[in-house]
């Protein structure tokens, strides 16, 4: 469903992604972890059509980016650490607005269903600015999945969430997995990264340095692996 081959992105002379290769199958949940500055957000912005790559191939559902961005946009939903919601609109108005941008049939019914799905029915007529961070993030999921995208992209979705809100988000994501969506998540939260997904990849200094099947590795073993791969890079950097 998502195919990334030798992806390069430079900001001026500064290389951020240096030949990323990643394949995500339909219905698979892949998490990308990495330290700050590894290029995770840049990669996510390219996959979500917000940024153009310098070179390399990115395909979603067989459609190459950025050439077929218009077509791909119908099939993707993006959840980021930013809510991408209008704080002065109510939850219902926010979703109605996005339903109109996606030309959804029965927008009112779909919005009501989506709000109920994320457990915000009682607060649907309240302005989003009165919501807690966890509630906002649940509404963000409702926004991102309102048009029933095949691919859900998650960019640090746990940022700023407390324990309970993180748990709720986990539950929502599990439901998305059960629904059969293809999910690509980037995070620097290793615990969440490993728990939910089928496969985890480590991105460091613009390259995928390791890929593991999440079901075949324990949390402690993965932590060791992660430290090994990122420490190795740090040491190299220090010597140069």
């Amino acid at each position, binding site marked *: *469903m998502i195919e990334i081959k030798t992806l390069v992105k430079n900001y001026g002379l500064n290389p951020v992604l240096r030949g990323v290769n990643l394949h995500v199958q339909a219905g698979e949940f892949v998490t990308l972890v990495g330290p700050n500055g590894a290029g995770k957000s840049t990669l996510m912005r390219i996959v979500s059509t917000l*940024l153009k790559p310098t070179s390399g191939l990115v395909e979603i559902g067989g459609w190459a980016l950025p050439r077929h961005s218009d077509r791909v946009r119908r099939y993707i939903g*993006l959840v980021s650490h*930013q809510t991408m919601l209008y*704080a002065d609109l109510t939850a219902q108005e926010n979703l109605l607005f996005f339903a*109109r*941008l996606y*030309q959804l049939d029965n927008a009112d019914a779909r919005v009501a269903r989506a709000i109920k799905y994320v457990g915000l029915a009682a607060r649907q007529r309240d302005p989003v600015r009165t919501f807690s961070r966890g509630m906002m993030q649940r509404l963000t999921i409702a926004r991102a999945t309102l048009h029933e995208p*095949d691919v859900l992209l998650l960019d640090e979705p746990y940022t700023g969430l407390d324990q309970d809100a993180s748990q709720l988000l986990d539950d929502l994501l599990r439901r998305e997995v059960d629904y059969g969506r293809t999910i690509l998540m980037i995070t620097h939260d290793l615990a969440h990264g490993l728990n939910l997904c089928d496969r985890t990849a480590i991105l460091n200094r613009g390259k995928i340095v390791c890929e593991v099947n999440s079901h075949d590795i324990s949390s402690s073993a993965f932590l060791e692996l992660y430290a090994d791969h990122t420490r190795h890079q740090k040491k190299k950097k220090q010597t140069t």
Partner: protein
Amino acid sequence: MSEQSVSPSLPGAPSFFTAVKAIVWKDLRIEQHTRQTLSLMVMYSLVTVVMFNFALEANLAAARDVANGLLWATILLAGTLGLHRSLALEQDNQAIDAILIAPIDRRVIYVAKVISVTLFTLLLEIILVFMFVVFFNKPFWQPAVLFILALGTIGYVAAGVVITSMAIQTRSREVLLPILLFPIVLPLILPAAIAVAEYMTGQPEMTRVTSTVSLVLAYDLLILAAGFIAYPYVVES
């Protein structure tokens, strides 16, 4: 992977005007809830006009002479507030990204923003015209003057949306916006102000009015076309 791999109930892209309508609806709804844009513009204009009125009170004739220029200056300054507020809304919580990943043409955003900011500015002008008639006793209420004001507003906002969309992404956006915008709209504001000034004399010279209004109209069309074409590149990262 083939196209068949995507689910059958996928949404289609809305028509250009449906998407424009959705964004304008959203902007008006936010304004209905907060009343921040219009009230900010009106308060700013009120303070400006009252201050000038007091400053020039010693010489009422002089005040009446500069009323036309003062009206345009107030529109320009208050207009930047409206432009800034309208586009800053999209930057809050990075909401613009949600619009940019929707299956709509980038130019939809341009057209929608021009419409909503023009609506706010025209509402402000209705209030301003009333204030200027009261304070300066000048015939700004004439339909021809209102028409010229509307034409000037469209061109100003059409240029303003492009410039604000660029400036809003910088740290010094509040300072950068008027510095970039005012020189660009000078070729619009000068003929528009001259045309309005003709009507303030009571006996407008129609050849002069026609030539200046033609310039305003030409500027409007040119800047609308340029903004429409350039906007996708402006909002690209």
